[in-house]
C-alpha cells in the first residue's frame, strides 16, 4: 500500500500574522492545507492520505474537510506530535491501526502541509523512487552559496555549491525500513533529528535524490506567504 502523509503538526508560532497556524491561512480561495491535500488526492496511487494535525486544531481540520467536500474515505486524520518525526510515527501508528500490520512493501510519502505548489510529477517520482530504492528526498540544486559558521560570527567553511542541494518535501520511505532505522537510533541521536531523511543518513542507508521545483516553496515566513499569494494571482486588498 502507498500512503500519503501531510505534516501539519505545528501550531503556527513563526508567522506572527495570525492566530491561525500557517497551514490554515488562505491562499486564493482556500486554506493552504486544502490546496496541498487536493493535489495529493489527484494521485490515484495513494491508497490513503493521512493528515497529521496538532490536537488543538483537529476539529478545525474536520470542519474544513466537510466544507471543501473532502471528508472522503481516502482522507484520514492523525494526531500531530512534538516534532516532525513524532508526527510521522504517529501517522505510521494510525496506519497500523487502520490497516493491520505494516507490510514489507508499504510506502509513506511525507509532505509539508505548507508546500501547496507540489506537483503530481514530484509525487509520482517520489513513489517510484521509494519503491525502487527504499528512501528518497526531494531537492533542488542550491542557488545561493552555502556558508558554514560554527560560532555565528566568522565563516568556518564554504562548501562547493555544485554539491549542495536544498531539501524540500516530499520525503518518502519504505515504512518498515524507516521504523527499523529509527528504533536503532540512540536518544541523543534522536534529539538532534530535524529531518526524516537524516534517520537513514545517520545509519548509512542511501537516500535517492528526486528533482523538486523551485516553486515547491515552503510557506514559513510572512515573505513566503506574500510570494505565494502573488504567484496565484496577486494579493487582494482584503488579504
Amino acid at each position, binding site marked *: 500500500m502507498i500512503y500519503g502523509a501531510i505534516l501539519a503538526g505545528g501550531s503556527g508560532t513563526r508567522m506572527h500574522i495570525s492566530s491561525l497556524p500557517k497551514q490554515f491561512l488562505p*491562499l486564493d*480561495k482556500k486554506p493552504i492545507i486544502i*490546496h496541498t491535500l*487536493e*493535489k495529493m488526492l489527484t494521485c490515484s496511487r495513494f491508497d490513503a492520505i493521512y493528515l497529521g494535525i496538532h490536537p488543538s486544531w483537529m476539529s478545525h481540520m474536520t470542519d474544513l474537510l466537510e466544507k471543501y467536500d473532502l471528508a472522503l474515505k481516502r482522507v484520514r486524520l492523525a494526531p500531530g506530535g512534538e516534532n516532525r518525526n513524532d508526527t510521522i510515527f504517529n501517522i505510521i501508528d494510525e496506519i497500523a491501526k487502520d490497516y493491520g500490520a505494516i507490510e514489507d512493501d508499504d510506502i509513506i510519502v511525507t509532505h509539508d502541509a505548507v508546500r501547496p505548489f507540489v*506537483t503530481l*510529477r514530484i509525487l509520482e517520482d517520489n513513489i517510484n523512487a521509494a519503491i525502487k530504492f527504499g528512501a528518497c528526498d526531494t531537492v533542488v540544486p542550491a542557488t545561493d552559496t552555502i556558508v558554514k559558521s560554527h560560532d555565528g560570527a566568522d565563516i568556518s567553511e564554504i562548501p562547493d555549491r555544485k554539491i549542495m542541494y536544498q531539501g524540500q518535501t516530499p520525503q518518502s520511505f519504505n515504512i518498515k525500513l524507516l521504523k527499523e532505522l529509527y528504533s536503532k537510533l540512540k536518544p541523543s541521536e534522536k534529539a538532534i533529528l530535524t529531518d526524516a531523511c537524516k534517520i537513514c543518513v545517520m545509519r548509512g542507508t542511501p537516500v535517492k535524490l528526486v528533482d523538486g521545483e523551485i516553486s515547491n516553496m515552503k510557506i514559513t515566513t510572512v515573505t513566503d506567504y506574500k510570494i505565494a499569494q502573488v*504567484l*496565484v*494571482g496577486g494579493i487582494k486588498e482584503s488579504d
Partner: protein
Amino acid sequence: MINYIYQLVNPQFISVKYEDADISDNVLVRPRYMSICRADQRYYLGNRDLKTLAQKLPMALIHECCGEVLSDKTGTFKQGERVVLIPNIPGYEREGIYENYQEGSRFLSSGYDGFMSEFVTLPPDRLVSVQGIPYQTATMCEMLSVAVHAVSRLDKAAHKYRDTIGVWGDGSIAFVIACALKVKMPKSRIIVFGKNARKLSRFSFVAETHLTYNIPADLKVDHAFECAGGEGCYDAIHDIIEHIRPQGTVGLLGVSENYVSIDTRQVLEKGLTLIGNSRSGREEFLEAAKMMESQKIRRRLGSIIYEDEPVKSIDDIHRVFATDLNTPFKTVFEWRL
C-alpha cells in the same frame, strides 16, 4: 488545488502561471501525450504578425492532446479512462452552424490557454473516450477530426461524380485528409500532389502521387483539397483550378499568413465551389475516434509520428519545438510536467 500552466509569454519564452483549478462541475484530466501543430510552431517562433501575438499571448500552446481522467464529479468517465481533449468551446448556438464556426466560440491555444498544463478541467462533452488506443496515436485524433470535418462538408456540397479526388500538399494535413477520404469515400481514386518525393512516398495507400512540377497536363480531378498552406497556398490553388473538372468542389485547409490571390475568372468559368475549413467539433471527434478503432488506420497514422523524448522541464518544451522543425510530419511527446 494549484495548477501549473506553461504559457508562451513571448516567442520562445515560456513561463509558469499558477492558478487555482476549479474542479467542481468538471472533469479533471492529466495530459499524458501531446503533438505539435503548425499553428503552435508559428506562435512559438513568433511567425505571426505582432498585433496578433500581442493579442493572444501569454497563453499555453498545444491543442492536440490526450490524457487520463483523474476524477469526474459528473460520473461520465471512469478514473484512469483515456480521453482526447476537444479544444473548441462552442459559442452561440444557431441551427445549421457547426460548433467550430459559431460566433463566440473559443479555441484553446488560440487566445486562450491550450493544454500545456499540469491538469486540465473540462466539461464532460469536451472529452471523448479513446480507451484501448495507444496514447501516441490518440494525439492524432484532433487532426483526424479536422479531416473528417472537411471531407464531410465536401461530401455534402459536392456533385455526385467523385471518381478522382486530388489532395494538394504532402504534409500531415494532406496525410490525414487522404486517410479520411480512404474511409469515407472508398470508391474514389485519391491522387496526392506534393513537392517532396520522400514525403510523398509515405502516401503508400493512395492510387497515385505526383510531384507538383510534373503533373500530366491531361490529369483531371473531380474535387480537390488544398492542404499546402503557407507560401504553397498560391501554387496549390492555382494547380487545383487548372486540373479540376467543371463544377468541382475545393476544400481549403492550408493556413497562410498572407493574402492569397486566386484566379477568380477560372473559378467563375468552371463554376467551382470553395469551402473553407478549420478546426472541428464533438461530432467529428467521435467519428475520428471511431475510425481509430481500426488497427489499419492506427498503423497508417502511426507511420507519420516521430516520438521525441518525454517533456519533464521547460527546457524540454524548447527541445520538442526544436525537434519539430526537423521532423517531416508529426512530433509527439509524453507530457510529464
